[in-house]
């Protein structure tokens, strides 16, 4: 069984349970990172007998859609002016909401979020007077739930809170259009970790090539930023098991990694051996290959390494962070959830962003070291020279300035970005360029990014900005503005 973790939110009138597979990325963030997320939501209506209680199940996208819908609906209720719309009727008459159609205009979730990823569900609400709400389940409907669930205001309140709580803990990938590294410390640590882990791994591989006679178990040797290292406490880490008869290297320092990419050097602390979480044992027999598309085998190296350049166009590669609580109960196991499975296949993962890159790098470390360390490592230590040098080259070329506009945008914001006082998190934007170098689209990723957009000195769309794009196209570039004034840019997509 892959590692399973469970989070349960239990406001008085509903229970939201999250099941997922733990990701090795977790150790680089200050939240647990999960994959293959499934959820189960039970509405506990005290007026109904137990066998009539409604339970719905679904996957991460559906859960996100539900959150979006509930949040937008609650806001639309609050946005209603506190004056009666209907003077002569009863207080709770549905006529109060006769102008429901009008209200629906406000029910649409933030366009900045949805424009990018239209959610393929049909979940929506309809008010029934001041105190009742009809939730249309859309794709979440099942035989027992029927198409709709009536919710009282208290139930809606509890549902909104459970979903908010989940949402605040969820670390979703950039492809979902939400701040993926919304905790600032985690953000920089994550980026640096992604870079340096790749460097470290490549260095390790190089070493395996040059010193085949004494293969080292330190395959997953890596560096990390000071920040992330600070959070790697003993509990969350585990030492690499040494291969029998082999002296483990004292530290990855001896590996002499190639020069790290631009931007990473500033944060680079002396490399340390990666210590793996001991709380997430992975049974070698059942780790789905798709979960670790990059496990270290000679053939897997070449396609893996260059993928630090994010190009998110798939939502399915997302990971979600949930605090692990307990192993899955049998009925909560991912297989039993009705939603479609969402394995991260290599294709998808390849097109994902920086976070997935570090996920994959670290996943590979885990896979290599946890699945069968003594045997697997020497195997992995014999890649072809071509593959190894390819990996090393790729590591060097993952400086994110794949096209000049990436650096130009970074320079622009390095000049102009002044974090507003009190900003407590990084702001992330996806900037889509026109071929002439002007901005075609600005997509704030997350609420904070949207609200702070006016403080970022963001150029207007369609006004001269950076140099024209060679060969045309509309590259998408991720802009990360730190509250400490740091600016990072990444190419997400070339066209």
């Amino acid at each position, binding site marked *: 069984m892959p590692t399973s*973790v469970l989070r349960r939110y239990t406001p008085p009138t509903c229970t939201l349970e999250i099941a997922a597979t*733990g990701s090795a990325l*977790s*150790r680089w*963030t*200050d*939240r*647990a990172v999960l994959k293959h997320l499934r959820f189960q939501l039970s509405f506990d209506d005290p007026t109904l007998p137990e066998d009539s209680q409604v339970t719905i199940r679904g996957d991460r996208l559906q859960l996100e859609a539900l959150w979006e819908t509930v949040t937008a609906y*609650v*806001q639309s*209720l*609050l*946005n*209603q*002016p*506190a*004056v*009666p719309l209907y*003077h002569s009727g009863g*207080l*709770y008459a549905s006529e109060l909401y006769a102008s429901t159609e009008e209200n629906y205009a*406000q029910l649409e979730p933030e366009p900045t979020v949805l424009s990018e990823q239209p959610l393929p569900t049909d979940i929506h609400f309809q008010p029934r007077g*001041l*105190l009742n709400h009809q939730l249309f389940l859309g794709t979440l409907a099942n035989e027992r739930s029927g198409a709709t669930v009536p919710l*009282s*205001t*208290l139930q809606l*309140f509890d549902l*909104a*809170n459970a979903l*908010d*709580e989940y949402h*605040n*803990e969820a670390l979703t990938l950039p492809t979902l259009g939400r701040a993926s590294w919304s905790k600032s410390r985690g953000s920089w640590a994550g980026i640096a970790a992604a870079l340096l882990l790749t460097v470290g791994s490549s260095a390790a591989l190089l070493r395996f090539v040059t010193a085949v006679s004494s293969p080292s178990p330190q395959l997953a040797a890596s560096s990390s930023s000071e920040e992330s290292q600070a*959070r*790697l*406490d003993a*509990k*969350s880490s585990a030492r690499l098991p040494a291969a029998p008869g082999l002296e483990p290297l004292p530290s990855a320092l001896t590996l002499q990694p190639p020069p790290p990419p631009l931007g990473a050097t500033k944060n680079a602390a002396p490399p340390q051996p990666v210590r793996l*979480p001991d*709380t*997430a044992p992975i049974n070698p027999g059942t780790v789905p290959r798709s979960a670790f598309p990059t496990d270290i085998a000679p053939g897997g190296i070449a396609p893996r390494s260059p993928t630090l350049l994010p190009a998110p166009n798939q939502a399915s590669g997302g990971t979600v962070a949930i*605090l*692990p609580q307990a192993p899955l109960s049998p009925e909560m196991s991912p297989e039993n959830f009705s939603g479609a499975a969402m394995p991260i296949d290599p294709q998808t993962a390849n097109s994902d962003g920086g976070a997935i890159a570090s996920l994959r790098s670290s996943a590979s470390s885990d896979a290599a070291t946890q699945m069968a360390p003594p045997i697997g490592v020497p195997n992995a230590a014999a890649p072809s020279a071509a593959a190894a040098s390819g990996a090393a080259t790729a590591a060097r070329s993952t400086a994110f300035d794949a096209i000049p506009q990436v650096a130009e945008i970074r320079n622009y914001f390095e000049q102009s970005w002044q974090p*507003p006082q*009190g*900003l*407590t998190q990084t702001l992330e934007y996806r900037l889509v360029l026109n071929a002439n170098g002007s901005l075609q689209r600005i997509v704030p990723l997350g*609420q*904070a990014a949207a*609200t*702070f*957009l*006016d*403080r970022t000195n963001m150029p207007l769309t369609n006004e001269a900005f950076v140099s024209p794009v060679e060969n045309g196209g509309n590259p998408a570039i991720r802009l990360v503005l730190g509250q400490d004034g740091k600016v990072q840019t990444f190419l997400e997509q070339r066209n």
Partner: protein
Amino acid sequence: MPSVKPSAPKPVWDELTLATQPNPAQLDNIKAQLDLVLLALEALAGIGSEAMLQAAADLGLTDVVADRVSLWRLRQSSPLRRGQGRKRLDVEEARSLVLIICHLAKQHQELIRRAVALLEQMTEQNREPHTAELLGDYLDRFSNTYQERMEDDEATSSKDLTYLALKLLIDLLFYSAPSGTRRLWMALLDRSSHAKEGMME
């Protein structure tokens, strides 16, 4: 895995941002709404200026709300209020009031929840809300205080006032959640963006 304690989002000042500076009519609308939400809190939980000042102190907002006089002036800035010489409420003050309101709503969430549960129950049983003691007291206090403080407006029937009080009660429930400040702020901005002079009357 790192054990991370899920932290509820703090009422962050920076969540409460503006895309554009509200115009005077919008600010008027915001003032009126904030004063009404505070009125509902007062009527339900018996919160007085002492508790509001304490909340301001808890939140480090004494720069904005230092004493009774400044609080009174803030609230007096509602265009619905009787009297002249209203103070202009600026955005920073509006933010402070949002934080104070949500802080207080959170403190009294249990009471608010009980009142809403009671309202649901009464409605389901087709009974008048004011026949339940908690709701009756709330509605009475709300109406009395409203009529005492606000410009006498013939158009405000007791039915309207009851609706207003109950709508505010339900709103308060949502403001008592961790995401309450954002919700209240967005509601203020949204409503004020449709505001025309006198909309709240």
